[in-house]
């Protein structure tokens, strides 16, 4: 049990996917303008991450033992189909949520955080529960980073930023500062 909690917090803050491992930067830079959108994007990501973790565990346990060279190709197929299925289910069950998520849903396919999760899970040899804890932690970390970024950007909008620094450069500087702050969590590692 302690292991699971540790995996969760490690994935969420110590090795935060976005700020420490640079995975899932695209939505981080692209859709972090509003807190509300950021939250929704985060929720969609957690959902896909958890489903991916389950499928990757099944693939690793039952199929890839016999054909390790198919790893990458099968992962990407699983992710692409999962996103497609999730999209169809949400469209059928809750058209309102579907409209709110809009283009973010299909874009999750090309989000490196999802494939990154699958690969890290494989490299570290996580079992079923460990993989689940890892996925939820990683998703929570992504959401945390997105929401933090969005709230900072909402405030910065009112500030008088020089024209040259506006746009991506400013977002990257904020991201760097956030990343610097998150490095403080590395202290958790040594005290465990």
């Amino acid at each position: 049990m302690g292991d699971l909690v540790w995996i969760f917090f490690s994935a969420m803050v110590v090795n935060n996917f976005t700020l420490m491992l640079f995975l899932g930067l695209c939505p981080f830079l692209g859709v972090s303008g509003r807190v509300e959108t950021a939250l929704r994007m985060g929720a969609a990501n957690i959902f896909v991450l958890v489903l991916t973790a389950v499928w990757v565990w099944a693939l690793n346990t039952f199929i890839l033992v016999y054909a390790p060279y198919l790893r990458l190709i099968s992962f990407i197929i699983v992710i692409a189909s999962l996103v497609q299925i999730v999209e169809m289910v949400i469209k059928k069950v809750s058209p309102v949520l579907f409209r709110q998520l809009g283009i973010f849903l299909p874009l999750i396919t090309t989000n490196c955080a999802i494939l990154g999760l699958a690969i890290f899970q494989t490299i570290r040899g996580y079992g079923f529960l460990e993989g689940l804890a890892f996925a939820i932690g990683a998703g929570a970390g992504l959401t945390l980073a997105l929401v933090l970024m969005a709230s900072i950007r909402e405030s910065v909008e009112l500030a008088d930023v020089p024209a040259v620094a506006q746009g991506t450069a400013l977002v990257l500087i904020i991201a760097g500062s956030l990343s610097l702050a998150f490095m403080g969590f590395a202290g958790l590692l040594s005290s465990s």
Partner: protein
Amino acid sequence: MRHEISPADLHCGAHGAAAPPRPGHAAPAREDLLRGIWRENPVLVQLLGLCPTLAVTNSVANSLAMGLATFFVLLGSSLLVSTFKRVIPGEVRISSYILIIATFVTVAEMLLQALAPDIHKALGAFVALIVVNCIILGRQEAFASRQPVGRAALDAIGMGGGFMIALLLMGGIREVLGSGTFLGVSLFGPRWEPWVIMILPPGGFFTLAFLLLAIGWWKRPRAA
């Protein structure tokens, strides 16, 4: 009718995305090749493929390996996609491109593992993550799937070269400041105190931010 991702959405760093080449606009071969190097540089201008740009550029050697691997995958998939552009059905084109890309990435990963095991270990999961590098998918959708093989190859060489230049720029700055070395050779002697922050994750964000600032300042509209 097409229930798929449009090319514009694949440019995941949405704000900086450059327009795809205009159809019927015949550019000379030189233009195909040089466009990716500077004017439409995938990283510094279009802001694509930022994950590897920030994650593996803590040393020049890693940047070089990543650049070469991406170059190989981009060139290989562009050639294949351009060759089979009439065979691939429109409805499943994105999935087909991803499969082609994943195949080349698997080859690149095996090659790297065999030729440079140390670097393969240092790059870790990021070699496999070339699959989701939007530069590659973006070029297939926007260029290779509509152009003859020769032009697709030139475009891939240009874009791959541009990506490599950006990676080496980042890797150079970060390694020189962060470790005081270039390709492992000490530059400043023992009295140099390295800026450790530069080779840590925040250094990646800051280096790219200042590169973009410098480019923005250089390209700023000059008042008379």
